[in-house]
């Protein structure tokens, strides 16, 4: 099977690099274990479709661990709300064409090199960031 077709992130979107283990029964996309909704009993649903089903009342609301929003399925529902309300226009760091995300107004970034360089805060390369994040 191919890689998971869900896109992760909030302010920017990137492809999930996990191998797919199932196919969503609603959107037919291949999904990994992390993006499979655990609460959708009896059906294989991706977290994004599960969020849509919950919003439409076709799935009971999932408990959000320890309260607060943006947990589990609620994260994808809230992300969907933000994108549709045009509060945020995410940048997509990928090359896949997926009509599932056509409803979002995102910007595709065509880059020469990746920024998945696992840099951490406080690296020597971040000296320019100082307390004020200014580098000049």
């Amino acid at each position, binding site marked *: 099977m191919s890689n998971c077709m869900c896109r*992760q*992130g*909030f*302010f*920017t979107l*990137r492809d999930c690099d996990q191998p797919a283990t199932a196919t969503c029964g609603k959107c037919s996309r291949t999904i990994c274990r992390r993006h499979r909704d655990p609460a959708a009993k009896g059906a294989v649903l991706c977290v994004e479709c599960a969020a849509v089903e919950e919003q439409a009342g076709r799935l009971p609301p999932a408990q959000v*661990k*320890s*309260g*607060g*929003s*943006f*947990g589990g399925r609620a*994260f994808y529902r809230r992300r969907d709300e*933000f994108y549709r309300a045009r*509060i*945020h*226009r995410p*940048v997509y*760091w990928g090359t896949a064409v997926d009509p599932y995300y056509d409803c979002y107004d995102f*910007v595709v*970034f*065509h*880059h*020469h090199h990746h*920024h*998945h*360089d*696992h*840099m*951490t*805060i*406080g690296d020597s390369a*971040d000296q*320019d*960031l100082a307390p*004020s*994040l*200014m*580098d*000049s």
Partner: protein
Amino acid sequence: MSTTPPLSTNSPILRTRLLEGRFSIHSVIARVEALAEFDVRNERRAKRQKLAGVISMILAVLTLLGGLAPLALLGLLAAIVLFVLAAKSRKLDIPNDVRLFALSWLRVVAADMNEDGEVVLKLDLNDVTSQAKRVASGRQGFYTCNEYRNPWFSGDAALADGARLHWEALIEVDERVRYKTKGRTKRKIKHVAKYDVVLGLPQDSFGVAQPSATAQDKVRVKVGEKRVVVRASRAVRSASLVPSRVEDLVATVAMAYRQTTPKTQSEQPA
């Protein structure tokens, strides 16, 4: 993903009222979840203790009226103990902003970080109107005026797209109270929740977009050698003590991103 055991009332963090340091994003989420779960349990416990204290007091009065003085004394003692325990539980109370705001925000940031990403975080568990947060106090005519300032939540994170994100959440409260011997105490509140965000994006990938900000936002953009740095601020005002909304911080970061635009392939360095 790391898990943290449930908090007990003896946990050091409940004494210091501060979560500060450098953590992996998932471990700090687990810690804040443990705090949130403790807060829920603690609130329930305080309510039960208070209710049990009230029932004990009522029973004490009834048994006293029934002529059973020793039982009444027992009931009274039980009520006192329960009220003291309830007060102790209330002292350990964590503002609901921790549960509703900080946890939600960390989940948003985690989505944009690598799995092994780290955050530098400061989370103050004191209530904004606590003694520790009062910065000024005085009298104006019949009114007692108190000013509170609580920089309760700040942090730094390195995002998966190469961005550096710094955030600060601050609450300022101006309170004017008029105590009356007859009638209700008058209280006027000015509550301001301020959010400051600094977003540093790789300069070889991002350029500056057309400026856009709403009336309640302040934005500054600076293009450096390595990064385009956007500083965005938002202030949300209210006439009462309202919980902070994570949507406001999310919108502030979204506004910071709006000041930049990805460079086309031809604009990027080879």
